[in-house]
């Protein structure tokens, strides 16, 4: 038994070593520099960067400072973005998964087709959406004008509409992944259960509520936690749609951190903001896991 265990350790050793160098060391370095005033003037010898204790954290946490205001606004924007993107994306994904679980001619082809938005690179997709949302020549305004929903062209890429622009584009890009995962879950549900429920007189909604949902629960929980974590990593859609500085309505932590660390080269502050974001994500994950008791393998 001991021999097998040693062998097991040996097998996972390369992965552990890779993880230490790829994840743990950079994270530890990131945490370390978050306590220093590291910038482009002292990064050539980062050990000379002055130790500033919790100053960077205070700036990030304190809603009175400019950076603190921006950070908390960006967290709020991220929560709004996440709430709508995840919930609406889930409803669409579930609907499509249920449809694709029905037998029909060309089903395999359609299953492949729905993945196109998801597999297309972010830069391409969000650049398309940027064109679509352009006020003067974008087809989104054209469509809304023709349908009579708006009377005048709306500016989607500046101001308070920007967050909705990002939400619409991100839902379009993200739902196929959810649909794929849910479809995989649906296919594990034995058809006999549906037949038995039908014989017992259950209608469509009751079959969905009492057979489908309970069986999909582990998949849904895992999908949700992945979506929540990815949501806090959101960067590409905001960067491509709105540029380096998405403005206060569409600023998310990743764009703010990126700008502070790599446009203004305030590496120490950028690291502190990243650590704060990591702690927020950790807290959300722990709350989620304890509330819903997610198990990766059911």
């Amino acid at each position, binding site marked *: 038994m001991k021999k097998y265990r040693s062998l097991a350790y040996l097998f996972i050793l390369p992965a552990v070593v890779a993880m230490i160098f790829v994840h743990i060391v950079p994270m530890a370095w990131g945490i370390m520099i978050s306590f220093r005033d590291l910038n482009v003037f002292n990064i*050539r010898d980062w050990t000379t960067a002055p130790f500033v204790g919790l100053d960077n954290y205070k700036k990030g946490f304190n809603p009175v400072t400019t950076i603190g205001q921006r950070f908390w606004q960006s967290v709020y924007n991220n929560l709004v973005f996440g709430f709508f993107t995840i919930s609406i994306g889930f409803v669409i994904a579930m609907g499509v998964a249920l449809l694709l679980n029905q037998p029909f001619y060309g089903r395999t082809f359609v299953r492949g087709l729905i993945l196109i938005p998801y597999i297309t690179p972010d830069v391409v997709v969000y650049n398309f959406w940027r064109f679509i949302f352009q006020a*003067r020549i974008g087809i989104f305004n054209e469509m809304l004008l023709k349908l009579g929903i708006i009377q005048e062209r709306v500016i989607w890429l500046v101001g308070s509409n920007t967050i909705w622009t990002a939400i619409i584009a991100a839902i379009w890009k993200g739902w196929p992944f959810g649909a794929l995962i849910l479809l995989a879950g649906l296919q594990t549900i034995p058809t006999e259960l549906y037949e038995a429920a039908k014989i017992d007189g259950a209608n469509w909604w009751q079959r969905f509520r009492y057979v489908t949902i309970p069986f999909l629960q582990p998949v849904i929980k895992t999908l949700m936690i992945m979506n929540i974590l990815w949501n806090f990593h959101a960067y590409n859609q905001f960067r491509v749609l709105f*540029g380096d500085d998405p403005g206060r309505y569409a600023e998310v932590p990743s764009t703010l951190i990126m700008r502070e660390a790599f446009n203004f080269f305030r590496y120490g502050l950028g690291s502190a903001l990243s650590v704060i974001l990591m702690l927020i994500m950790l807290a959300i994950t722990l709350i989620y896991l304890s509330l819903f008791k997610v198990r990766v393998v059911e």
Partner: protein
Amino acid sequence: MKRSLILLTVVSLLMLAATAGATEIDFWAMTNAPSDQHYAWMNEKAAEFEAETGIKVNFEEIGWGEIMTRAANAIITGEGAHVFQLGTTQNPYFAGTGGLVEIDIDEFGGADSFFEANLESTTLNGKNYGIPWFAETRALFYNTEMLKKAGVEPPNTYLELVEVGQKIVEVYGKGTAIATAGTNAWDLIHNWAIILWAYGGDMLNPDNTAAAFNSEAGVKAMNYWVNLVATGLADEACAEYNQPQADAAFINGDAAMCFMGPWNIAGIEADNPDLPYDIVQPPAGPFGRASFSGGSNLVIRSNASKDEIKAAKAWVEFLLRPDILADYTKNLSKFLPSNKEALEDPYYETGVWATFVKTLGYATAYPPLVEWGEIEGTVQTNFGNVLADYVDGKYDQNSAQNYLDTAAAEVNEILGN
């Protein structure tokens, strides 16, 4: 004997390799011209230079969006270009890192060879850390046909610009008078600064220790800019434009006027050569005319070896030869040479170039400060907020003052006040 011969051959080969290594340098320049033509020109000149000096130059084109990160990485790691282009506002920043070679400007023809504003942009605390390569400034481009049909002449003052714009709108419709850049444009601050200076304001106080742009002139300039959209002279969509989108609106003939730079001439020649256009100096404000003086400098990485630095200096000298520089600016990049001798080419006394040269004579450069990038970013963010408020219908007569005060407070903090 045979062993000695082999040893001698090996030593000779090693020495040759070492020499070859020292005479090979990497050079980064930004997208100053269409890429295929740019690479062709640079590779041709690099071959000429190598034939002359034995130094091999490897050219790479870098986007304006990437240069800050790439240059920082090169300076930090010692990997990357030995000599590279920096924008005039970026030069002092990198000089402050200690990552650039201090330049004795006399090695490159002396201070009198260059335009003052461009030379100043290479300095930090009175020392030079770059060599001016080319200059640029902004002027008012106008569509001659649209102005003629509207029965107006190009404007001389900012008040006239509004009157001319109104006539154009009467003929061509709302939003056709002028194309302006919006929240996505880095040039937004330059375009605003042109009006700020013409209204008697300045970005910082005389000793560059505190913000001064939140003055009455700053507010007037910002209100003027926003009102171009609010009064229908510029299209509402301008609020979301980046500079190339604003340029394209003019080049496509959708707008009658636009503040643009000399490099846009290449764009017009490529995209709409039949465009009937001309240029005039920027309109005058109550304090006269003003324009933004920009351009690019060539800098040398200080953590390169002595031989590489020597080779890099030779390459810069080569690029600055009046005939080579004039060829680069005239036929390729459409910028203005920063070297006065190169600018003496009769070509620059003709047509639109005469206007650009005249404008460059009084154009203002931003103060050469290490903190300038952060200052520019702060003003840009708050200008973006002004436009966002306008789009959301929240813009009122206090908006510009409030946001400029916010920006000024941040800038003062950056400057250590």
